[in-house]
């Protein structure tokens, strides 16, 4: 495993704390922080269960906090865009395709993630939305960002594992023979 700076590890530790928080609330344990100038300025954790909205991933939670905060502070859209371009995201699991697309719309500077997301990942696993060229249309839509995976991946995975070991109380009960399992 590549060595990461102590700063990087400290920030990912904050994201892990968020994931642990999610676990306590019986949510899939994924957490994140958004960082500007080395300081965590927003955090988020998965809230899909509580909201019954499967799009309420940790990243979306943290983004909403910043958008609200910055507008309360009176920042214009252009200033907010500028801010996002100076921010880094630390998230325990590779952003899914939805979140990676959102980060690319916002124009975030960089992403550090823990474990890869082989089924949904939008930063290399399934799609590579972080690699979009940013040359055309400065604010036209999607932009690329730098992406570093494998930061404290084993911690992220072990949280997910404990989620399954305690059982997911939210899962619908099986109601059919598991005939399709072979195809899953």
């Amino acid at each position: 495993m590549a060595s990461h700076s102590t700063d990087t590890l400290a920030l990912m530790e904050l994201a892990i704390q968020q994931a642990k928080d999610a676990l306590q609330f019986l949510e899939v344990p994924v957490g994140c922080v958004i960082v500007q100038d080395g300081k965590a300025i927003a955090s988020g954790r998965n809230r899909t269960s509580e909201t019954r909205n499967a799009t309420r991933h940790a990243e979306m939670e943290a983004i909403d906090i910043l958008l609200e905060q910055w507008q309360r502070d009176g920042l214009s859209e252009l200033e907010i865009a500028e801010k996002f371009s100076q921010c880094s995201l630390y998230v325990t699991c590779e952003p899914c395709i939805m979140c990676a697309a959102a980060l690319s719309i916002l124009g975030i500077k960089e992403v550090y993630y823990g474990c890869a997301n082989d089924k949904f990942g939008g930063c290399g696993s399934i799609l590579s939305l972080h690699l979009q060229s940013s040359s055309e249309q400065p604010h036209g839509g999607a932009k690329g960002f730098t992406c570093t995976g494998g930061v404290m991946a084993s911690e992220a995975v072990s949280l997910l594992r404990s989620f399954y070991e305690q059982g997911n109380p939210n899962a619908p009960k099986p109601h059919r023979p598991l005939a399709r399992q072979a195809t899953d």
Partner: protein
Amino acid sequence: MEETVVMNEETGEAWRIVNIPGKPPIPTDQQPTVNVYASMIEPNLANTLIRRLNQIAPLENLRHVKRIRKKAVEGGKSQLSAILCLACEDENQWNCVPENVQELVNSYQLSPFITQVCKYAASSKEEWEGQCKLWPTSYHPPTYNINGVMGFSEEDSQSVFSFMKFAIELAKSSEERLVNAAVIVDPSNRQIIASACDQINSWLPPESNASMSNGCIEQAESLCSHPKSSQVATNVFPLSNGSSDKFRKLYTNVSCLNPWRSSEQRPRTSSCYWHPLRHAAIVAIEVSAAMDRHLFPALGHIGDECYDVEDMQSSFITSPAKRPKTNLTNVEKEDKQVLHTKDSCSISERPYLCTGYDIFLVWEPCTMCAMALVHQRIRRIFYAFPNPKAGALGSVHRLQGEKSLNHHYAVFRVLLPYELPTKGETLAEIADKDKRANALQFH
């Protein structure tokens, strides 16, 4: 059926529903082919020869290939050719042709030549049209069942068209600016579950994260056009400040096409914030989730194993006792009743996320929105206009064909008999032009 056409008898307008498959059509020149022997035949011998050929040299693995090709030639006549048999791997080896075919060739004085036919049956109408240029094939559009989705009856088609019209009306309702609109529908009873327009300029943040659920419900009630509530409630857009160049600005506000441009010249209001990710589909999902919490408050946490749960498990952890995967996508009524008797709560009446629901969007959703609809387990997506810049259902990406995802919806484009509102140019083209024109002005 791949394509459903319904004519309006009064106006003669044709609406069409076209499936957007998970895989793009294979260009004709890239389709695998096989060599066959064919020969021109006299039209009056066609029946006899074909009957005989089908007996002695049936085209076992080429059932999609037509035995006879009819070509129009000069003078209004047509020329017939028939496939005799497969050619050998090794070209020009006439001696591998079955003896009885050789006899037939001799007795009717045929002059065999080698030609190519497509090896596999076409999987779409486009592919089929390409195949026929080589040698005619037959095409049987699947009477299909994509994740339990049946083809469209006349009645279903009419329902699709009327919900699409509803979505278009919503999209036009935001003063002079056209935005995207999303309508989530339960097709089993044709009820609207949620509807929303882009809300890039009209975000009402929940008061705090702690009281999030309350905030969302209030918001949902004010935004949602539940079957019993007024449709007008969806129009919460602040008025734009009277653009002089109405036409030029018309399409730049469609978030999935143009997330940043849509926010330009945002009117400042005290209660509404700006949020570049509040695209119509995202808002509609939020509204439907809020409605769910509102209607089934007692269920607490039940119902979300959605997102990454089981998939993360299989991705990251090789668990000896994999949790049984459940798939509510294909739940039938009987199953629901079984569930109902087993579990005492009313979960049976409540769909899991948006399982079984359809969504109608005016524009093809962007990648973020398309993936959000995977997460929320939408069954079918209908859209009217493609999104060549950012569309994720065929234009730029094709999420319905991403095998690794845990859920796959079926995607359909609804072709309108008219364009909105100009002729000759598609909206996307206009939006694209407009965007380029405006990109310069933005800074």
